[in-house]
């Protein structure tokens, strides 16, 4: 069973290019439809839960599903399965990377790729801004802009920004709830926690 878990996630890791969200339908197909280990609903639950965790979605999801199947050994098998193809492929490329970079054509290739990587960053910012509905909520927009400025120009550590953003969201949420309660004509402490 552990070997089966390992190889199922190994296949998922091997065949998904683009990472994260691209992996989800493939994990779902492998785990729910081919193996029948989880129902679709259980799978969606596992995504919505692991989605709120830090770190790569694919390994978090693998940890979660592995645990439901075979406790901690299952988790470890699933994690190792997910990351092994990446590690093997990247190490093979990395080994020849420095030698390859001495070649003028390889250099020319990466000279062309540099600006495209910037385009990928722009696209990641754009996609995340869209899913966070940045233009519809003033506070979200301000936090995003302020994060950009303090990290990019003032050298503040991103970790502080992550903590501050979470605190701001929690404070703003309780203020909003307090205001809503006032408008309804009286505090309803029982309903908010």
């Amino acid at each position, binding site marked *: 069973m552990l070997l089966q878990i390992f190889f199922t996630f190994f296949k998922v*890791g091997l065949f998904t*290019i*683009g*990472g994260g969200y691209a*992996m989800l339908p493939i994990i779902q197909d492998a785990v729910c439809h081919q193996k029948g280990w989880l129902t679709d609903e259980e799978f969606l639950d*596992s995504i919505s*839960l*692991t*989605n709120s*965790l*830090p*770190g*790569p*979605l*694919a*390994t*978090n999801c693998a*940890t*979660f599903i592995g*645990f*439901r199947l075979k406790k901690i050994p299952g*988790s470890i098998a699933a*994690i190792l399965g*997910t*990351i092994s*193809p*990446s*590690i093997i*492929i*990247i*190490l093979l*490329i*990395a080994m020849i*990377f420095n030698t390859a970079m001495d070649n003028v*054509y390889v250099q*020319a*290739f*990466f*000279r*062309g*790729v*540099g*600006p*495209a*990587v*910037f385009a*990928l*960053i722009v696209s990641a*910012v754009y996609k*995340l801004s869209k899913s*966070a509905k*940045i233009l519809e909520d003033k506070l979200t927009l301000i936090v*995003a802009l302020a994060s950009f400025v303090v990290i*990019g120009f003032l050298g503040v550590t991103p970790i502080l*920004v*992550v903590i*501050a*953003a979470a605190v701001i*969201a*929690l404070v703003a949420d309780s203020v909003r709830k307090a205001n809503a309660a006032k408008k309804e004509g009286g505090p309803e402490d029982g309903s908010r926690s």
Partner: protein
Amino acid sequence: MDLVLRMCLAFIKIGAFCFGGGYAAVGLIENEVVKTMGWLTSEQYINIIAIAEMTPGPIAVNTSTFAGYLMSGPVAGILCTLSIILIPSCLALLTAFFFEKVKNNPKVQVAVKGIRPGAIGIIAAAGISIAKSGFHDYWSALFFALAAFIIFKLKKSPIIALLSCGALGVLLYGFIL
């Protein structure tokens, strides 16, 4: 302190704060490894991102393995990868363990949603140094425009954009200029 140990600690820290998908990890690793510690140059890091995107597997995992390898060899590559997923995996285990209790915790949802704009800032900030070392000459603007056209207009995968720009790069810098 031993370099590999310091790298592991850095990647454990990055993993703990890496909310908002693969590119948030790309941004955090850039900040720590390139900007703060100076373990890799910005040029090296751009190539790492390109290869991490073009190969199978999660971008955060690919980037960690590659960065670790270039900093200190294959063992460091594996250790950096295990380090970045250490805390997230422990949290995922806890989540699986206390499944019913955390299922619908509104406070967690609010905090996680609130971190998203912060993650946007982290990625955008990493974009500054990536733009600075990714743009070599006036031609770079053309490559950027091509990549943006492929991603935003044609809605093709980023891999097509990277490969097209690379091929055009070989043609332009390798044969014409």
